[in-house]
């Protein structure tokens, strides 16, 4: 297959083979003997938009289902909102343009087979499967279609995909957050499904107020079921504040942190930690450097203006330390700054490893394993122990079981 390089020059490359592409990751896993430690990837992705032919039939509304399925077959319109972006760097990250060339066996879900390949290569035991295109569903101009597409995706995922993965893939299902009543219906319908550990809100939304009274019943329903709530970030070049950016790097670098900073601020300042103290909350895919920034910023203002957030019984940073964060994309640029970040967020108990594979800025488990300042306990906890405890994931061998017990993380029965 040819890829287009500069000035139309063609570069011939072989078809994509995930196992071969990640051969060096396999070497790392073997050299570090990952098998003895349970490794959980709390944020991996698949390209669900390539399965719309299987997903759309699960839509509930006959008219919208007909519109989307009809338009899709003629390529007349797009189904999910999309934005301008160059994740693949002009083909430099070759798994993007080559993705369709990878061969899988007939008769099994392709996304499960691909997931198994990258998990096996990296030494990952479990992955939380999130969508890709659907991360922009919060930008859909029709909230009834946001709900129906989430419904169809969640049915397809829980009925067709996750059951084929032998328990190694789990998910936190997409919520149609523009409609609190529909979000509640999703929690009630899917909350007890196998391989579902919670619900995910894509934070790429301009008008979301996480503290809106209408949403309290949704949080309560998730908390009552012992499930988790995740906020997954992303970029949006169409957001007015980013329209002055002229390069994708700028939108990408700022966007992920921006949305999590915005919504985490509202979450903390409105005392959601006091209202739902037993609800585990995860902030996903914004890196880590925004966390010490926001802790210091909010603590500073809280000391001056406590009357504006009377529900708080401790500093904002204390509430932030009660929540969980995913590692990727971890900014390993200044080791002392990173160590300080880990200390400030209580990483040993609050940080969860995430690869974000197959997206362009994925992180291998070695990004955590090789950090020079981490204790053995912290490595085990961050790479999988904390997630195993939180999501009740069982060990896959005796050595993992012993380590989960050793560090107090065995919770699966």
């Amino acid at each position: 297959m040819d890829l287009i390089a500069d000035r139309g020059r063609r570069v011939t490359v072989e078809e994509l083979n995930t196992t071969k592409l990640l051969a060096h990751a396999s070497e790392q896993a073997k050299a570090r003997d990952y098998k003895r430690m349970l490794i959980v990837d709390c944020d991996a992705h698949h390209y669900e938009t390539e399965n719309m032919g299987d997903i759309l039939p699960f839509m509930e509304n006959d008219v919208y289902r007909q519109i989307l399925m009809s338009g899709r077959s003629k390529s007349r319109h797009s189904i999910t909102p999309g934005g301008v972006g160059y994740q693949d760097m002009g083909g430099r990250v070759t798994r993007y343009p080559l993705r369709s060339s990878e061969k899988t066996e007939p008769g099994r879900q392709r996304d499960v087979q691909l997931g198994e390949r990258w998990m096996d290569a990296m030494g990952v035991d479990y992955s939380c499967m999130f969508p890709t295109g659907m991360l922009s569903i919060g930008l859909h101009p029709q909230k009834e279609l946001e709900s129906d597409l989430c419904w169809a995706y969640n049915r397809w995922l829980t009925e067709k995909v996750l059951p084929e993965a032998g328990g190694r893939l789990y998910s936190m299902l997409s919520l149609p957050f523009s409609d609190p009543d529909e979000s509640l219906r999703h929690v009630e319908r899917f909350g007890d499904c196998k391989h579902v550990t919670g619900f995910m809100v894509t934070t790429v939304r301009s008008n979301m107020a996480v503290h809106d009274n209408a949403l309290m019943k949704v949080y309560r329903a998730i908390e009552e079921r012992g499930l988790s709530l995740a906020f997954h970030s992303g970029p949006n070049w169409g957001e007015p504040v980013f329209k002055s950016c002229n390069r994708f790097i700028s939108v990408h670098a700022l966007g992920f942190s921006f949305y999590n900073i915005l919504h985490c601020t509202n979450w903390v300042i409105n005392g959601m930690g006091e209202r739902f103290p037993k609800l585990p909350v995860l902030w996903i895919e914004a890196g880590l450097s925004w966390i010490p920034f926001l802790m210091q910023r909010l603590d500073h203002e809280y000391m001056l203006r406590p009357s504006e957030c009377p529900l708080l019984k401790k500093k904002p940073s204390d509430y932030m330390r009660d929540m969980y964060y995913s590692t990727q994309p971890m900014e390993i640029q200044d080791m002392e700054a990173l160590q300080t970040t880990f200390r400030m967020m209580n990483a040993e108990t609050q940080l969860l490893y995430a690869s974000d594979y197959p997206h362009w800025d994925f992180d291998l488990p070695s990004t955590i394993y090789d950090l020079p300042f981490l204790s053995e306990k912290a490595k085990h906890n961050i790479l999988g122990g904390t997630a195993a405890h939180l999501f009740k994931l069982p060990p896959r061998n005796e050595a993992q079981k012993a380590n989960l017990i050793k560090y107090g993380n065995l919770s699966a029965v």
Partner: protein
Amino acid sequence: MAEQFVGKASEFKDGARQIVRMGSDEIGIFKHEGEYFAYSNYCLHQGGPACEGLTIARVFEKLRDDKTSVGLFFSETDMNFVCPWHGYEYDMKTGECISDRKIKLKRYQILQKGDEVYVVA
């Protein structure tokens, strides 16, 4: 010094590459504009196959004398190769990481004996 056979020069086309294993290292050998360049195939970032991705001309931004930007252009002279995992770009002629030239891939010597090409470590 150990030598590892790479291939026949007559069959090594310009713009092509070979990957060979030598001891604990994998080595990528490029033939670029008639010259051979050999580097470790382990990316300095997260260990990806640094020599197995695209080769693509360096991008530069042209400025006018008044410091206004003309835009982005491909270099006519400088070639990079790109790690396919995350896009780390390396200078074909030096192995330097173009976003931080203080770091560079380990370089290996190439030896040609008649029509046979060897990498030396």
